[in-house]
């Protein structure tokens, strides 16, 4: 016999320990994706319990269900559209009254609910006593005690889900009774909707038969939301041809309430909900002086100290950076060498031909190019999971917000942008810590301007070849600085012109400090790595093969003869021809077609810019790029100067161009994956190349005019 299926959704405030409960329920049986069209993450998992196959949807953490924030909109959309069989509401027991506010909203969606009092141990230590049976009666839903971090109560949650599903718990028709003035109008509107034969009901998709058909909105909830002037519902209602009656009645109801209460209707509803919650808590819970924040406040006195706050934050970031790159880079090198050796080995096993070239340069190179990022992604998310799990990430945003806000960004944008100095790929993934999609998008768009590690070899070689050692440091610093300045400027530009609108408020809870469990940190880390491999990895691989093809074909000239040398082959390849086609565009920047080809090659990875130039200007000898010894580099530098005919000005402009123009293809792939659309990666390619051209044009022409570096 097949298992019976139950679909449940987990709802709860951010910091209610929802993720821990989700992990306890589903273990490794998880799947992370995105909700269609938005950058909000969709997490699902499943498990088996007593003959039931239970699918668990982890909703975004929210404080309410208003239409203001995308997270809240999605949470309620999933509940209404996907109609989970049971809604499991995770609340922080040590902060019960506040967490129950969301519960009163969820309850109005008329889905069977289970309430989980998580972190009950902390609450109990603080002297809280809960009468679970009474609480369950008052709320009309099973109430379960749980300690997520110790995996306590997991079986109880599952039992409660099953008993809710099987109808053992008859839910109360409504939870919160609003003040009589409001209830009167709700009743009045309900009657009108029914009496109009269902026509007026259509606008709010609440079926006349009682609001339980298909995707219909619960009736009472819809009316309350309409009274609250909920953007989304009002829009839907107005769009409906038969909404006239309803809208008129609604306006009259609002007017009547206003005249009776003389008060803001919105606030009246909120107050009634809180009054109800206070009443319930007074009856079912006993709490002594709640002191949940005292330890946290002591820690914050140090970590958020006006003098120490910033140095400590920077120290923490330094550790994160070191963890990621100092530990990660040797591993990256190891993977690179491993794949290079694999390529050499395969090369030796096969006879020369297209297949060998595809396998060695296209596929092995491409897979290597995917795997190589794995160590830094794993290490970075190990660190981020820890910082988030402890509650420090919110403090980091608190400390940095003033600076980032001025740049049109959010306090939390700092971390991804900092990681961008190491590598843009994990940096984009780190932008997930930003909850607001707009802040997140702007952060992702400007992070590629942070000069990543792969650009450094380009700088060091060119600076070594064209600049005196005394100015080398300043030249290098200027490049990093220009990147930062451009990022700030572009962030402001995007914020103002591209993504305008009301700024997301920075009203943020500073969660109490806790130690995250090893399990939840590891799951988070693995989730990110897997997501990268599965989604971005495939795109990176495909793009690598495209790059290989661009440089490999055509393999013979018009007469069918092989090219006499690699240089001629590259020159005649599609990439080479592209370089020549774009030469007129590049010549105002002082570049010739060879530089153009090198820049095309740099799309694969920016460090390739120099090696391709080496090939084209025939200044490369085999050891020159690989060896680290000073004299070899110097001889490379000398030859680079002689062969390329660059002036220091052109070399500087080339470095600038490398800094700004299209981030490498793995970045484009990750951006596609993270934003869930090709629109933003394509936009990024467009804006960075335009910006690169404009900046380089100004610098080159300015330099020529002033006679600097020519």
């Amino acid at each position, binding site marked *: 016999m097949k298992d019976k299926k139950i679909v449940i959704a987990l709802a709860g405030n951010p910091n209610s320990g929802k993720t821990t409960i989700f992990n306890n329920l589903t273990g490794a049986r998880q799947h992370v994706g995105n909700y269609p069209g938005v950058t909000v993450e969709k997490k699902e998992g499943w498990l088996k319990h007593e003959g039931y196959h239970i699918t668990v949807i982890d909703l975004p953490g929210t*404080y309410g269900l208003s239409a*203001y924030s995308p997270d809240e909109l999605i949470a309620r959309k999933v509940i209404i559209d996907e109609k989970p069989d049971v809604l499991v509401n995770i609340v922080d027991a040590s902060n019960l009254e*506040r967490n129950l506010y969301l519960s009163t909203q969820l309850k109005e969606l008329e889905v069977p609910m289970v309430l989980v009092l998580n972190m009950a141990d902390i609450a109990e230590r603080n002297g809280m006593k809960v009468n679970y049976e009474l609480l369950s009666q008052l709320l009309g839903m099973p109430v379960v005690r749980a300690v997520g971090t110790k995996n306590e109560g997991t079986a109880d949650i599952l039992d409660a889900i099953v008993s809710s599903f099987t109808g053992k718990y008859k839910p109360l028709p409504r939870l919160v009774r609003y003040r009589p003035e409001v209830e009167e109008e709700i009743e009045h509107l309900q009657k009108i909707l029914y009496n109009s034969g269902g026509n007026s009901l259509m606008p709010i998709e609440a079926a006349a038969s009682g609001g339980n058909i298909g995707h219909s909105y619960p009736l009472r909830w819809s009316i309350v939301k309409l009274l609250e002037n909920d953007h989304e519902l009002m829009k839907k209602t107005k769009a409906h041809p038969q909404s006239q009656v309803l809208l008129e009645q609604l306006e009259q109801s609002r007017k009547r309430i206003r005249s009776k209460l003389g008060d803001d209707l919105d*606030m009246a509803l909120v107050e009634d909900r809180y009054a109800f919650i206070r009443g319930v808590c007074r009856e079912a819970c006993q709490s002594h002086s709640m002191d949940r*924040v005292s330890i946290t*406040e002591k820690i914050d006195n140090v970590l958020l100290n006006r003098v120490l706050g910033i140095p400590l934050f920077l120290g923490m970031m330094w550790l994160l950076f070191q963890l990621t790159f100092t530990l990660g880079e040797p591993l990256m090198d190891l993977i690179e060498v491993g794949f290079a050796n694999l390529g050499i080995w395969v090369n030796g096993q096969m006879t020369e031909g297209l297949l060998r070239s595809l396998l060695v340069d296209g596929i092995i190179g491409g897979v290597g190019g995917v795997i190589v990022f794995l160590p830094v992604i794993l290490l970075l998310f190990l660190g981020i999971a820890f910082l988030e799990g402890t509650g420090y990430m919110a403090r980091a945003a608190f400390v940095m917000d003033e*600076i980032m806000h001025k740049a049109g960004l959010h306090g939390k944008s700092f971390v991804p942008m900092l990681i961008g100095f190491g590598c843009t790929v994990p940096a984009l993934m780190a932008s997930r810590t930003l909850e607001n999609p707009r802040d997140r998008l702007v952060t992702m768009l400007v992070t590629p301007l942070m000069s990543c590690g792969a650009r450094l070899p380009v700088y060091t070689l060119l600076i070594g070849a064209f600049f005196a050692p005394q100015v080398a440091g300043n030249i290098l610093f200027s490049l990093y600085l220009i990147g930062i300045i451009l990022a700030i400027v572009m962030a402001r530009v995007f914020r103002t012109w591209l993504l305008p609108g009301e700024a997301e408020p920075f*009203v943020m809870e*500073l969660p109490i400090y806790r130690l995250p469990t090893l399990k939840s940190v590891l799951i988070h880390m693995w989730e990110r790595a897997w997501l990268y491999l599965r989604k971005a990895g495939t795109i990176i691989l495909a793009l690598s093969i495209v790059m290989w093809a661009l440089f490999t074909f055509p393999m013979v000239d018009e007469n069918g003869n092989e090219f006499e040398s690699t240089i001629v082959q590259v020159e005649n390849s599609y990439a080479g021809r592209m370089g020549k086609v774009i030469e007129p565009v590049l010549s105002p920047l002082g570049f010739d077609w060879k530089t153009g080809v090198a820049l095309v090659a740099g799309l694969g990875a920016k460090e390739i810019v120099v090696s391709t130039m080496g090939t084209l200007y025939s200044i490369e000898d085999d050891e020159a790029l690989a060896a680290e010894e000073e004299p070899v580099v110097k001889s490379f530098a000398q030859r680079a100067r002689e062969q390329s005919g660059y002036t220091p000005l052109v070399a500087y402009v080339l470095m600038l161009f490398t800094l700004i123009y299209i981030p490498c293809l793995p970045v484009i792939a990750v951006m596609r994956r993270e934003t869930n659309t090709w629109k933003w990666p394509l936009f990024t390619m467009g804006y960075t190349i335009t910006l690169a051209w404009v900046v380089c044009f100004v610098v080159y022409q300015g330099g020529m005019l002033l006679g600097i570096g020519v």
Partner: protein
Amino acid sequence: MTRTLKDLVPGEKARIKAITDSGIIRRRIVEMGLVPGMELTMERYAPLGDPIEVSSQGLLLSLRKEEADTIILE
């Protein structure tokens, strides 16, 4: 002169009278549990002066000064 949350100095306590914003800021603030009538304590400024941190019955909340300015105190 109406006094808003922005005017408090660290350590000072006050009671919320009203929230002037009528959009997302108020919605977020009340959803998080800061409603008129409630007492709160100004905890600290961020190291650079903005945002600020307040506490109220076991909740620690940070908000920018421009948002704090919408919270009117008794």
